[in-house]
């Protein structure tokens, strides 16, 4: 059910992603990190996971929409950069304890390079 929601959302987010393409730099390293930690088949404990069906492109779209429409705040305890948090209104994955996750946190460094992003 979570995967179906994600698929339906992808088209809507296309424009948002392009609009912020110059604001957040998404490197392959960041993608790899997110895949290792937050992909549906990741064994990492204590971390939210994206819904089955997530792809590199749909991840970029989710990040784009969260950065465009989400609430921004400074990172905490001296970490460089900002956090963006956005509620999509439908599940985009699961929380660290397995409940549906509606929100995405996007972490960028002081040069607006994506560090990580995860559902919660």
């Amino acid at each position, binding site marked *: 059910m979570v995967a179906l929601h994600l698929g339906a959302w992808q088209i809507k987010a296309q424009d948002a992603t392009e609009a912020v393409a110059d604001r957040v730099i998404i490197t392959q390293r960041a993608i790899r990190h997110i895949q290792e930690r937050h992909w549906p088949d990741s064994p990492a404990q*204590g971390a939210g996971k994206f819904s089955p069906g997530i792809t590199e492109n749909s991840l970029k779209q989710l990040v784009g929409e969260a950065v465009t429409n989400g609430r921004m705040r400074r990172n905490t305890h*001296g970490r*460089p950069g900002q956090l963006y948090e956005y509620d999509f209104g439908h599940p985009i994955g699961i929380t660290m304890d397995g409940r549906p996750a509606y929100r995405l946190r996007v972490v960028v460094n002081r040069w607006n390079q994506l560090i990580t992003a*995860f559902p919660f």
Partner: protein
Amino acid sequence: MHLDYQISEDWDESSTDLATADETDLRYFAATGDIILREGEIDLSARWGWIPLIDFALALREIAEALSESGESETFEFTDSDATIRFDKRAQDVVISASYVPGEFGVPLMVFREQAEDFGRRLDRELRAKRPALGLNPVYQDFKLSGLSD
């Protein structure tokens, strides 16, 4: 209070050049592992393997300093999770609780501060011994994990 860490065996040391790693690398990707945080029967440990320990040491030190000055409450946010550890000052104690497990315990502020500093010193010593390149990194040196006299 027992405050400790365990560096992950699968920390991919070769993926980052520790002598030149920047602040983001050091606070998000280097020296990952577990946090052990318990008092008696209450265990708030986070044994997830991926917690960046340098970042945790720096945050702990900042939290201890804030509570020692005028702060009443501080919250540690994990880098890759919405889980949090909360530190509330009550009189001369710090009461510690976590979002991911029930329970809380108190520890005298002075003890908390000493243990936070000791955590940083021990981690610094182990990392420099295991990965001498880290000691050459000016960003890491500026962290002064072993204290201001470092």
